[in-house]
């Protein structure tokens, strides 16, 4: 079957198949494989088929938008009007969103079909998808392994061919890390590029939506739809969106790519290091110039990130109080009991840990030592990148220090889980765009390479990734069980 968004679009336009046909095909694949993978929390068959019929009617009239008839999946933290939006949390298990996120509106505007809502770590807090009220997602390359997180369901769905593409969100690596672990392509754009309106917040100054797909070319198409200024989001960038598709295939002759020494130091799995080296050689063959650089404050990014993210989430999650929506405990004896039990029952352990650390870091007498300090270090981390981009066009490194790990391997030690994000989180702190693309395998598990761009240089990232994908086929690999 065709497995690229661009290819499906051509087929739909040419009338080779209908949107209803391919939508039914995907729904059938979901029905077959989701029980083993658990990547969907909700499958929206009826909506999907209705949208597919509309798409076919539009195509028949010769009216087609950018994604007309293309079946996609959405992370279950984008609000979808009339459809359960759970954030993989018990506290929102009964929450039918009363409105559409801007990203969802954009997909509807461009004619995409929604297959369902994907599993994730609860409130996007996690790097393995094990923190979901609905259970862990399995990695399609080996179902005993995690798919990464927090957008694990979206990544696994695309990797297993249960959707052509999917939306995700990335607060500290939640698009790039699962893309790497599942062997697909994913991009986190510049902070402010994709509207956060209707994207249930984890860390407001870090969160950014973005797409998953097999290829950079498909990511460009999906990102085009997701991007743009939104007057409902005060942090949305008032900047024109370039034509990402047009930027592809410009070549990378003479492109200066920086390798931060800190990203290839201790802690990086040797097998991953070797795979990345091969990819770098390929890029050099294409004309890229490799430059050694340093991002000296890389080591600070994890503590800094966790203070900022936890402080923001502790406040962002206060609205889940059992009063206006979501889970309310049975027979509350008084208001305090209502709050404490509704939230105590509704949130999982990792969410509670983060709310507590965040509350503590903001409390009287600790604000300066934690939150203010973290905001200062954040500027130092940003300055590292700004200096680097004075001399290079892109920065390159591994997406993760290890390939996918076994389900349950790190659940007892939250801190070791946090270290999975070492290469990804500094981008969120700085607000920079980054993407992960598959560049090989280690012991049968995919390896992701991260490309980092300067502000609003998504085109540069997509072009470099596309050039690499023209001379490699790692992004076209499909796990055997799902071919």
């Amino acid at each position, binding site marked *: 079957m065709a497995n690229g968004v661009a290819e499906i679009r051509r087929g739909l336009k040419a009338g080779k198949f209908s949107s209803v046909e391919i939508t039914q095909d995907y729904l059938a694949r979901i029905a077959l494989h989701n029980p083993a993978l658990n990547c969907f929390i909700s499958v929206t068959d009826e909506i999907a088929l209705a949208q597919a019929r509309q798409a076919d009617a539009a195509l028949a009239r010769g009216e087609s938008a950018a994604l007309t008839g293309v079946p996609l999946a959405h992370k279950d933290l984008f609000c979808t009007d009339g459809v359960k939006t759970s954030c993989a949390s018990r506290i929102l298990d*009964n929450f*039918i969103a*009363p409105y559409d996120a801007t990203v969802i509106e954009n997909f509807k505007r461009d004619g995409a079909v929604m297959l369902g809502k994907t599993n994730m770590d609860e409130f996007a807090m996690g790097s393995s998808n094990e923190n979901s009220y609905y259970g862990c997602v399995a990695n399609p390359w080996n179902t005993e392994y995690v798919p990464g997180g927090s957008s694990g369901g979206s990544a696994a769905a695309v990797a297993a061919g249960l959707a052509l593409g999917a939306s995700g969100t990335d607060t500290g690596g939640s698009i790039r890390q699962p893309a790497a672990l599942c062997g697909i392509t994913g991009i986190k754009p510049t*902070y*402010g590029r994709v509207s956060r309106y209707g994207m249930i917040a984890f860390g407001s*100054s870090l969160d950014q939506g973005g797409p998953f797909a097999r290829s950079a070319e498909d990511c460009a198409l999906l990102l085009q739809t997701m991007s743009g200024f939104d*007057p409902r989001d*005060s*942090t949305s*960038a008032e900047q024109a969106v370039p034509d990402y598709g047009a930027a592809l295939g410009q070549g990378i002759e003479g492109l200066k790519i920086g390798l931060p020494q800190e990203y290839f130091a201790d802690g990086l799995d040797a097998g991953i290091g070797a795979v990345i080296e091969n990819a770098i050689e390929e890029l050099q063959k294409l004309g890229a110039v490799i430059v050694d650089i340093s991002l000296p*404050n890389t*080591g*600070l990014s*994890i*503590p800094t990130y*966790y*203070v900022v993210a936890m402080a923001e989430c*502790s406040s962002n999650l206060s609205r889940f109080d*059992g*009063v*206006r929506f979501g889970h*309310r405990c049975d027979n*509350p*004896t*008084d*208001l305090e*009991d*209502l*709050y*404490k039990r509704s*939230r*105590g029952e509704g*949130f999982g352990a990792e969410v*509670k*840990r983060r*709310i*507590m*650390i965040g*509350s*503590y*870091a903001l*409390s009287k007498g600790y604000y300066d030592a*934690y939150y*203010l*300090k*973290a*905001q*200062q*270090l*954040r*500027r*130092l981390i*940003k300055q590292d990148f700004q200096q680097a981009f004075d001399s290079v066009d892109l920065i390159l490194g591994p997406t993760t220090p290890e390939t996918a790990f076994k389900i349950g391997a790190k659940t007892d*030690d*939250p*801190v070791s889980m*946090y270290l999975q994000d070492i290469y990804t989180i500094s981008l969120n702190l*700085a*607000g*920079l765009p980054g993407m992960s693309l598959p560049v090989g395998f280690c012991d049968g598990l995919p390896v992701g390479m991260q490309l980092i761009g300067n502000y609003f240089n998504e085109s540069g990232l997509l072009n470099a990734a596309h050039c690499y994908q023209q001379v490699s086929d790692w992004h076209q690999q499909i796990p055997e069980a799902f071919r």
Partner: protein
Amino acid sequence: MSLKTDDVRNIAHLARLHIDEADVDKYAADLSSILDLVDQMNQVDSQGVTPLANPLDATQRLRADEVTESDQRDKFQGIAPDVEQGFYRVPKVIE
């Protein structure tokens, strides 16, 4: 930095989270190890560095003062746990 069980109880109260008494020790240990990680921030002297609250250092855009929303009470209250006569309800608050 290590947190005592009483600290955990106080923070849980501040955040209005019910925590089973049996789990308090585990939370104290987990939170303490996270705080140890966080304390690595002190390796760097950041005195005088301007805090960065927003990655783009952008400024606030202002909205025109226009009423753009209409009544959607029925829709919003359709997903509420307890409503009566248009009000949300909670156990009585004594002031």
